[in-house]
């Protein structure tokens, strides 16, 4: 094969992969000009045949192709499979979650990849995990309630703080701040003492024991280290490098942590990905998540169906669900919307708003009993009668 042939392959209207495959199979082969012509013609006509026909109902085919295998998926809502001791929703519930474009999946999780300097060293990987895992104050010391003086006393454990690489000053500063900001509890005074590594919280209301216990509860559970949404981190070695798996997801804050490989770190929260990385990344996430959910159940669905669904969901710049609050609910036609869920509401609203149905789509034409614009129904063929004697 010569470069002229390569150029001719590139010039053909073929998908990139087909062109590359063709080039790869032709290198180191002696083909005559005539054979080459023939090969090109064959490949091109095969490609043309494999393309979808105009007016084919791809949406219905996609729906069927995902729906039928879906009936074979496990229906149990609480079906979990542990990946590194972390529970992930799988099977049908997960698939429904993806299609419904929920803001938050029922089990958000992340796979945090590390940069080279951190990925191959267990201790350094562990250090990154401490920066990520949310740690409440009670893990860093003893918390006692002094009922006589109406105080909550925190005695920090210096050894634990050193081991987890957090300075005493930092804890003294963050603990009261976070109780005010994140837990919205403000009726207390605080006194930190760096020398005796202790903190004293005094509630403003000196009369109520209930208030004191409430304060103690806040003090115990305030997150002083790590990222609030990430409840647990598991460090696992995969293919030589350490990867952190998390329970809970917060891409934005994890990207800020030193040592995290921003280019590979993933979440299973699709709308979060769309918010942080953009709509195209969201589309990729839908495809990836749907495909891996199906494959995990031993079901193989052609990606093209899932790609079509993902494209529809991401059409308008944000991730929309398939159901009546998303794609199906925004259809132009009243009858089509009414044919999906909540029929009466749609018809009533349409009547009040004086909506007109143009009868352009498929569903509405089926309802009124007209030919639909699909397949042969879309071809407007007028035969001119010739030599017809009437």
């Amino acid at each position, binding site marked *: 094969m010569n470069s002229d042939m390569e150029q001719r392959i590139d010039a053909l209207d073929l998908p990139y992969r087909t062109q590359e495959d063709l080039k790869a199979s032709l290198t180191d082969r002696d083909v005559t000009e005539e054979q080459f012509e023939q090969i090109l013609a064959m490949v091109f006509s095969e490609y043309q045949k494999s393309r979808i026909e105009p007016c084919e109902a791809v949406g219905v085919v996609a729906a069927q192709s995902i729906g039928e295998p879906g009936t074979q998926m496990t229906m149990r809502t609480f079906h979990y499979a542990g990946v590194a001791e972390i529970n992930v929703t799988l099977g049908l519930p997960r698939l429904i979650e993806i299609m419904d474009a929920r803001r938050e999946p029922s089990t958000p999780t992340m796979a945090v990849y590390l940069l080279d300097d951190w990925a191959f060293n267990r201790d350094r990987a562990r250090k990154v995990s401490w920066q990520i895992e949310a740690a409440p104050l009670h893990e860093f010391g003893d918390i006692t309630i002094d009922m006589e003086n109406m105080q909550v006393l925190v005695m920090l454990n210096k050894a634990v703080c050193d081991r987890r690489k957090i300075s005493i000053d930092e804890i003294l500063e963050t603990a009261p701040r976070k109780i005010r900001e994140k837990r919205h509890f403000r009726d207390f005074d605080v006194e930190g003492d760096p020398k005796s590594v202790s903190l004293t919280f005094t509630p403003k209301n000196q009369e109520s024991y209930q208030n004191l216990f409430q304060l103690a509860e806040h003090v115990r559970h305030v997150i002083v280290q790590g990222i609030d949404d990430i409840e647990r981190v598991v460090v696992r070695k995969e293919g030589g490098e350490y990867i952190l798996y998390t329970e809970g997801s917060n891409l934005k804050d994890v990207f800020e942590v030193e040592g995290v490989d921003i280019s590979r770190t*993933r979440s299973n929260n699709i709308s979060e990905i769309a918010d942080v990385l953009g709509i*195209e990344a969201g589309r990729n996430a839908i495809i990836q998540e749907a495909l891996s959910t199906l494959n995990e159940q031993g079901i193989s669905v052609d990606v093209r169906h899932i790609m079509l669904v993902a494209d529809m969901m991401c059409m308008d710049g944000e991730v929309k669900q398939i159901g009546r609050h998303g794609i199906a609910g925004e259809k132009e036609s009243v009858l089509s919307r009414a044919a999906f869920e909540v029929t009466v509401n749609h018809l009533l609203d349409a009547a009040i708003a004086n909506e007109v149905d143009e009868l352009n789509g498929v569903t509405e034409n089926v309802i009124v009993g007209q030919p639909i614009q699909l397949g042969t129904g879309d071809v407007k063929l007028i035969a001119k009668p010739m030599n017809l004697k009437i």
Partner: protein
Amino acid sequence: MGTSLDVRNHEMVPDHQIMDEEEVADLLATYHITLEQLPKIYHDDPAAKAIGGEVGNVIRIIRDSRTAGRAEAYRLVVKRPKK
């Protein structure tokens, strides 16, 4: 750390490019469509912001397709509607 995150480096974000007017005209002519018929991308989408896309621009997206190997898609930059 500290510097703002560049989403273009993430493996899930395909290549985004702003198309010039001539290319847009070609595109619309090839598919016999109007500008409004293109899929949309919001003006504050992180990937659109990273390349400086403004409302009215058309962005060419070069995806790593699982079937075709490489596929081009187009999105029109629109303002995010207020909720």
